[in-house]
């Protein structure tokens, strides 16, 4: 016991050495550098880090520098709880969360501490209701909005849904199952039949489901919601079963460069498309600016920049954070000592902020903390991802009604 206490004291002393300086805004970002989601966390975390560095090198937010504290949770809850408290003790006014269970575990604390947290692409669908969850900002399409959007996309592709057969191929965990209520409701509304094909963890064997979809059930369209290694397995399994990849649309965690590479490269995944909540590719001014910053510092650009899907999402997260902080500093009369509530109000002022097309035209004002649930479909071509649609949202009214119902259950 004594040993532990002295080690706590030593560590406490060390932590105190790095306490906040004046004229500085502290924010936290959780990204899993290790653990099951490290393949997402590394490029995404680099994107966040580089964008904040870029903003700091251009003078910061209203003249104040941003200090970004990165936390690695390994997708485990106890380190996230500890990490959040550390961020709080360092004076963080904003926390970027990472992972649905972590979001669940910290929701109550964020609300109590009046500290806004962002959960782009995961977390609770109901959190879009800003009245019920004032300090949570999904700020990107939730799984429910993705479900609505993918049905909308299927409708466009097939020219109508009546009498069609849609297969939902999903990872059999809570996150994977989350799309189900929206899809079931839309299938009743639009008159298509929905067949559900769960894939048990770890999702590296999918030939049975693929054969079922292609040969027995003869689906007209596949909506898939898979994680980790599973999306690439799905591409190969559907190809083997003879199902055309043009008729597949994936949720946001199933269509990255890494998935295409793992499936055997662009040739093997040609036509496979996926929903995205941030722009994909290299052709954005902000990425050129980051490259220029690296060059000015005499460093090579990071290799993770080539993973444009996740890196650009990192930029999106950081850009939203910086934009909210900018508004918050304005609200605070130009001073750096903004409060969590001011940052929340800063988020609620974000409107028509597109960062050269990397962000959708989201609007966080007016009680919708998801900003509208915008997505854009990108298709695999011979040399990368190409946009197949413009930014759009699907069945927003239906989805938001369900969000309202769900958030009413919150106690």
């Amino acid at each position: 016991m004594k040993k532990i206490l002295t080690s706590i004291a030593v560590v406490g002393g060390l932590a105190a050495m790095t306490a906040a300086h004046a004229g500085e805004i502290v924010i936290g970002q959780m990204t899993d550098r290790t653990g099951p989601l490290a393949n997402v966390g590394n490029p995404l975390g680099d994107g966040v880090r580089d964008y904040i560095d870029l903003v700091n090198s251009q003078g910061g937010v209203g003249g104040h520098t941003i200090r970004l504290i990165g936390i690695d949770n390994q997708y485990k809850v106890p380190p996230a709880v500890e990490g959040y408290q550390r961020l709080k003790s360092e004076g963080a006014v904003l926390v970027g969360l990472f992972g649905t269970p972590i979001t669940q575990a910290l929701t109550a604390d964020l609300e109590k501490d009046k500290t806004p947290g962002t959960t782009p692409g995961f977390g609770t669908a109901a959190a879009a209701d800003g009245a019920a969850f004032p300090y949570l900002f999904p700020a990107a399409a939730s799984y429910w909005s993705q479900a609505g959007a993918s049905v909308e996309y299927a409708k466009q592709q097939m020219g109508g849904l009546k009498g069609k057969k849609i297969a939902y191929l999903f990872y059999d965990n809570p996150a994977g199952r989350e799309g189900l209520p929206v899809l079931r409701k839309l299938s009743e509304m639009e008159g298509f039949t929905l067949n559900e094909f769960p894939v048990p963890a770890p999702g590296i064997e999918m030939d049975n489901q693929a054969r079922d979809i292609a040969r027995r059930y003869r689906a007209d369209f596949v909506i898939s919601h898979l994680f980790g290694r599973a999306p690439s397995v799905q591409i190969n399994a559907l190809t083997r079963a003879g199902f055309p990849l043009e008729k597949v649309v994936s949720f946001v965690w199933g269509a990255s460069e890494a998935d295409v590479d793992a499936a055997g490269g662009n040739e093997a995944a040609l036509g496979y498309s996926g929903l995205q909540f941030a722009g994909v590719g290299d052709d954005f001014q902000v990425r050129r600016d980051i490259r220029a910053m690296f060059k000015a510092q005499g460093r090579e650009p990071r290799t993770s920049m080539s993973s444009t899907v996740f890196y650009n999402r990192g930029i999106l997260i950081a850009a939203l954070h910086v934009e909210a902080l900018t508004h918050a500093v304005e609200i605070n009369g130009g001073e750096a000592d903004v409060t969590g509530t001011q940052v929340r109000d800063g988020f609620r002022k974000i409107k028509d902020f597109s960062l050269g097309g990397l962000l959708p035209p989201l609007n966080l004002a007016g009680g919708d903390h998801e900003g509208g649930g915008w997505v854009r479909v990108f298709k695999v071509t011979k040399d990368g991802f190409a946009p197949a649609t413009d930014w759009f949202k699907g069945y927003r009214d239906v989805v938001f009604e369900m969000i309202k119902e769900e958030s009413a259950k919150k106690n």
Partner: protein
Amino acid sequence: MFHRESGYYKTSYASDSALYPLPVAKWAVAGFAVLFFVVAPLLVSSYYLTILNLVGIAVVGALGLNILVGLTGQISIGHAAFMSVGAYTAANLATRFDLPFWITLPSGGLMAAAIGIVVGFPSVRIKGLYLAISTLAAQFIIDWFIVHTPAISGGFQASIQVPRPSIFGVVLDTQRELYLFILVTVVIAIVVALNIARSRVGRAFIAIRDQDIAAEILGINVRRYKLMAFAISSFYAGVAGVLYTYYSGVANNEFFPLVVSIDYLAMVIIGGMGSVLGAIFGATFVTLLPITIDLIMSSLGPYLIADAGSLSGIKSHMRLILFGGLIMFFLVVEPEGLNRLWLNIRSYFRVWPFSY
């Protein structure tokens, strides 16, 4: 040291199984009670209380697994699933029937114990690696069952928001209040575990661990005691799960994956199997080590690596390497765990300055 006896002078069973072998133990316990009940909540900052809270919950879980693995010698890789059972039981009782924590906490434990008895049945026939695999199956079956039963899991998200516990109208929602709540539970858990270990039940467990056939010949009902060990161990796990639920304000099955079961097994092995103090050491070590490494590296890192972006990547991986390395180091230095290391140090000073 001067206030210690220099040899083994116990002459009766009563003195051998006494909770306080020496008067000084009483003072030490009183000292720790003052430290943790008075000094810590008054002086320690909220961040360090968070760490103590996480350690406290881990201690409850590790104590339970120690009774099964350490005392009774039955391996279980399904500990996290029992925590999950406790968490969802409490969450459902708390949200549907508005029951207070002093009912949901033991109910979560009892439900986990009931499931634990079912999962423990194979232990009557099989042991060792075979039992490990059958408890591993339990981990997946329980997890699957909870996620696919909306009546238990509360819907597609499989998570239930739970209001924070309240006592006499005071809602315990700061780290300090939750610390006291967890601390009281931990103290009860430790006292019960100590008493189990020194009682008739505990001796039966140890007899089964050492040689189950011999234990049966001695008149111990092996089946009954094995199932009892599973029940007690699962009860502890369930209570730890309920603590997690109240601590984070939500019950979620993703809090309790297989990795957590392995973590608890690691705590028991690192701490020293079969001793209550060992379980406490193990839980503290496994919870604190990554945090300590991370804090030290965050403080020293900027002096070694200028680029903050690269640092956060290197830091995470270094943490894993150091964590694994230190566990190996301690197990090589003392295979019987941290508890044996502590006993060695203690017995060295007991006879100091002589060697025997």
